[in-house]
């Protein structure tokens, strides 16, 4: 065991004590290098930034309000449900009226019905951005009322092989189908995609969101492909094992648009040296 290894072990033990708010146990007989490093670690700890009380309070209030809004959407049937609870006849009438409205709007959109003298107006567009947009980025605007419930997009993906040699390129294809009934625009396309380790459940590599805008007509799908060279975020080849794909949710005016894959997509990377025999 080298001297440096032993000193690093003592250093780590004392650093953990320091970060836990306890006193470091410094043996005066320890080397000058170790004592000096521990003194500097104390200085680093003292110089740490802390979030301001106002920032903490504001963010907490905002998050709790978002949580309450979500919970009230899930629990409260609304005046609609309360008004017609237990009243079958009224419920039937309301359902029929709703059906008439839906059919009427479909006929209107397709041009079968239109107000006299009016020309066709393009249907409203839903515009979303990725959930990872920073606070300084341009906010997106929608040109229509956003439906409060999804789903908006169905996501499916595939890889070109079930098993790869180390270093072999993994070709990924992703399809996004618009089931929202309105044109859907993703302002940062393609969305973020992560390669996840099944072992640690953590991302080993993340493809960042693109910079182009993509509009998907209702009922249509768009596809994109990505190629991964099995390098992690530091540029090193990942370990052998099982990996799966995950897409980042989109953000639609503060609401999450899920991009969960309809079927999980996973693949294996074999052990060995890069450039081995193709499977």
């Amino acid at each position, binding site marked *: 065991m080298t001297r440096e290894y032993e000193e690093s072990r003592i*250093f780590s033990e004392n650093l953990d004590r320091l970060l836990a708010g306890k006193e470091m146990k410094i043996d005066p007989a320890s080397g000058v290098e170790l004592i000096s490093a521990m003194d500097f670690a104390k200085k680093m700890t003292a*110089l740490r930034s802390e979030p301001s009380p106002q*920032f903490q309070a504001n963010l*907490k209030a905002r998050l709790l309000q978002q949580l309450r809004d979500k919970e009230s959407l899930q629990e409260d049937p609304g005046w609609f449900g309360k008004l017609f609870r237990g009243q079958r006849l009224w419920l039937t009438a309301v359902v029929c009226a709703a059906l008439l409205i839906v059919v009427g709007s479909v006929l209107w959109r397709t041009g079968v019905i239109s107000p006299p003298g009016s020309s066709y107006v393009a249907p409203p567009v839903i515009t979303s951005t990725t959930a990872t947009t920073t606070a300084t980025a341009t906010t997106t605007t929608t040109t229509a009322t956003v439906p409060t419930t999804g789903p908006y997009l169905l996501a499916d993906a595939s890889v070109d092989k079930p098993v790869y040699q180390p270093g072999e390129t993994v070709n990924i294809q992703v399809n996004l189908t618009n089931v929202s009934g309105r044109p859907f625009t993703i302002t940062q396309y393609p969305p973020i995609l992560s390669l996840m380790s099944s072992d640690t*459940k953590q991302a080993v590599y993340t493809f960042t969101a693109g910079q182009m805008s993509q509009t998907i007509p209702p009922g249509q799908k768009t596809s994109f492909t990505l190629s991964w060279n099995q390098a992690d975020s530091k540029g090193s080849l990942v*370990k052998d094992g099982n990996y799966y794909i995950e897409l980042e949710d989109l953000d639609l005016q503060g609401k999450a648009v899920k991009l969960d894959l309809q079927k999980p997509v996973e693949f294996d990377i074999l052990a060995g040296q890069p450039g081995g025999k193709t499977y």
Partner: protein
Amino acid sequence: MIILLTRAEIIEKLGTGAGEVFAELYVEYLPKVYRFISYRITDSQLAEDLTSIVFEKALTKFKSYSSDKAKFSTWIFTIARNTLIDHYRVNKREQTVKLEDAVNLVSPDSPEDESDRTEEMALLKTCLAELSHSEQEIISLKFGAEMTNRQIATTLSLSESNVGIIIYRAVRKLRDGFKVRQ
């Protein structure tokens, strides 16, 4: 009622009373996430913005989180790391500050102690920027997120002993860089 639950039970308490659960985790992890980010981002306003993004994402995904898959600290710092990766890729520049810029950040009306501290913080961040990316990340996970060497090793797929040596060497590099510039 919440107080009497074990941590695992609290984290699994989804759907009802999630506000109280999340609030408790927020109180514990906000300072750590903020410190972790501020080791990599000099601008305090930007560090706050990115910290907000981390917690907003965590709130959005909270219902799908399961303690069977990962500890909460591992989960939220994965979100934090990915948020930083995305920030760097979108902005394509490192966040550093030069000492002379840091001096200009100090208000002329600040007490001397506060200006010394601000200057030392800026100097430390200048020295941090000279470390390798992996050293910066390990230092921010250790001093910012207060992770143990074992947790850092798991997060970064390194051995625990390797993490210990990297931290020891990085702190000595920072100490030496600090002395040279002071």
